[in-house]
């Protein structure tokens, strides 16, 4: 009886949660392996085994392009976003200057205005940009990366600043006393100590970017320029919703791979980074 009270209920909750978590994923795997490849013939557990859906995905659609675009955009955008917000977090955490409080508050406010609400304006803006500089206009990775970087300062800076605050000030102060410049104090003293939060923010931005659908959908209309989210969404459009389901599920599984890899790679930082960043203390 005491086992039930001590440990048993924990297993019960754990198993229920795992079932809830896994049920749609098992369905995706089953549908991806389903020889018929339609929604109506896909069962929860696999009824057959074929790799045809995967083969079709590569043969009939520009999946390789989409994959490359997604990796390029998510990789570059998250790296650049981390760098930018890292710098800003350092300034907010370590320096006292006029407008600091206002700056922090406005960062919070501006990101509450969903960038998506301004989608009409963004569209008009990039129509002009495409006209002037096609290299960073519609249907280019560079333009979309720039657009994503507009939001880089938002939540990441707050998250990082919270973590930076936990690093004792004395460390960089003594480095400054020894003659280090502010840049050296940051890159050589602080940065090595805050890798957990850098890893976590990197993961969050990467996942958010690779999943981003709305702006990318407006931005990328050429088949070859699409990202995974836009391309896969197109597979289920109109009449093909039932017939392309297997291919879609195969694509979704392959899309999860980069995320899982990044996750594995950064795993040891994740739990400590997530909590310590949320609020100092």
């Amino acid at each position, binding site marked *: 009886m005491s086992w039930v009270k001590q440990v048993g209920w924990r297993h019960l909750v754990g198993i229920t949660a795992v079932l809830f978590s896994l049920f749609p994923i098992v369905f995706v795997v089953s549908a991806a392996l389903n020889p018929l490849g339609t929604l109506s013939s896909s069962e929860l557990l696999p009824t057959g085994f074929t790799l045809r859906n995967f083969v079709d995905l590569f043969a009939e659609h520009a999946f390789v392009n989409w994959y490359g675009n997604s990796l390029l955009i998510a990789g570059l955008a998250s790296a650049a976003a981390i760098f930018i917000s890292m710098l800003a977090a350092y300034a907010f955490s370590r320096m006292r200057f006029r407008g600091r409080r206002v700056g922090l508050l406005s960062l*919070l406010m501006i990101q*509450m*205005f969903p960038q998506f609400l301004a989608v*009409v*304006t963004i569209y008009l803006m990039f129509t002009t940009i495409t006209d002037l500089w096609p290299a960073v206009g519609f249907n280019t990775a560079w333009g979309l990366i720039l*657009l994503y970087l*507009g939001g880089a300062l938002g939540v990441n800076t*707050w998250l990082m600043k*919270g973590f930076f605050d936990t690093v004792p000030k004395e460390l960089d102060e003594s480095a400054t006393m020894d003659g280090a410049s502010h840049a050296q104090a940051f890159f050589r003293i602080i940065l090595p100590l805050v890798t957990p939060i850098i890893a976590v923010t990197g993961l969050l931005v990467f996942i958010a970017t690779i999943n981003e659908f709305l702006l990318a959908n407006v931005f990328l209309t050429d088949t070859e320029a699409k990202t995974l989210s836009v391309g896969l969404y197109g597979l289920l459009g109109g009449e093909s919703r039932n017939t392309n389901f297997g291919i879609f599920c195969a694509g979704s599984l392959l899309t999860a791979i980069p995320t899982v890899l990044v996750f594995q790679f950064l795993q040891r930082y994740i739990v400590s980074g997530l909590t310590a960043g*949320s609020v100092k203390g």
Partner: protein
Amino acid sequence: MAGKAATPLLDRGGREASDEVPRPPRSVGLGGQIGKIVALSVTVALAVWAAFPLVQQRQWLGLGIEIAVVAVICYVYLSPRRVPTKYLLPGTLLLIAFQVVPVLYTVGTAVTNFGDGHRGSKAEAVVAIQTSSVTRVAGSTEYALSVATRGTAGTGPLVFLLVDPAGAAFVGDADGLRPLSGATVNGGRVTAAEGYSLLNIGQAAARGPEVTEFTVPTDRGAIRAQGISAAYEGQAGRLYDADCDCVRETATGAVWRADDDEGVFVNDVGERLAQGWKVNVGFANFTRIVTDGAVAGPFAGILVWNLAFAAGSALGTFALGLLCALALHSPKLRGRRIYQILLILPYAMPSFAMLLIWRDIFNTDFGLLNRMLDLDVDWFGGTWSARIAVILVQLWLGYPYMFLVATGALQAIPKEVGEAARIDGAGAWQQFRRVTLPLLLVALSPLLISSFAFNFNNFTAIYLTTEGAPFPADNPGAGGTDLLITYMFRLAFDAQGAQYGFAAAISVVIFAIVAVISAVAFRRTRAQEEVYS
């Protein structure tokens, strides 16, 4: 650092302070210097590259802004002062360009009638009215037409290269007709022209509908294509008359007068011409949210559901994540690691794809749920079943993240706190309710607030699943699971005619609601004081 070349000229920072305490000379790292020079050079090179198209298209304002931005960048990074600015500038510039400017422009749009039929200036509306009324009349001038473009043959903007009966060559586009120099006229038509690439017959035919739609406005009417090798100058059936500020139909004498308050041409019986122009309408869009019955009714209902959805998603994922974290937070539990990995798998799956898959799980005809349970339920057909379904999907997507965060927060609470409570006689529940939960909430409430703010505007959660369904028969514009943002999206991009101005007004209201709720919530948490310290 490799180089110790501390030249006094490049010495930076803290000059004032060095009077008091003698310090070793600042070592300005050689690597840092080189990096800075390279970065600034690249910036300047990019700016020069970007300047050419601006000069070419005579965008002097754009050029001015660009020069100012580059000047600010160079000043900030070359001056030894303004150290905080050095760190804040890159993010701030991007923030201004791609968030602040669009947001301000959207807010500006909210006080206009911008939308389909009200896109441009009055002059543009007049041109549109005149060109769309063009008909071919006897004695119209005929031109030999060559379709060309300044860009690529497949997608570049079209221009008409025309040769009139007298043999003179012209170029015509949406701005009007201009003489064309540097063209080779062969057999009565343009066969080559400097700066233009001519479309061959196949390419022109492929863009046939565009060619047919294309009009070159002229004083008397407009030039339109007939086929892909001939064009004619037609006469406008409706002409603008500046004296009466009205549009007159030549054949019937009917008159539409300009109404500068509404930005339309309207006749005596109140009929409007389709092409209007953009005018400032003040707060009309905002008052419409409150006064227009067709808008105000659904708006209140949607707002209530939107609040419930955001609160339900944020609190639901938090509660579920916390429950799992508590259950798995025990050293006695075997297989804890396995549980954790399997539990957070949904977080690794691409969320856009999983939303679509959930949508298809709930599908009436082919969906997994109906087939497994042998039901024939239209899950997204009933308001409440659809609402429960979308919240369930949000729970599935969101709780692994909350689980991760809550696990971390639990680990951060010192064991002694729990032990102390137990010694003081607290039961397991009391210990959780009075000690663990308050500590967790201090750490996690900022996260809860931002989760609420995010879900309040969670467009994809609805757009990729129910698309707002079910829609009541009497108001097909506002569905049972619509959030304000999906409702706004439908207004803005409606097939019946986009109403950007009105949609922008709703955006501003949404922003105000979220901002007020978040501000109040933040004030109630202690997070604020800690963060500003």
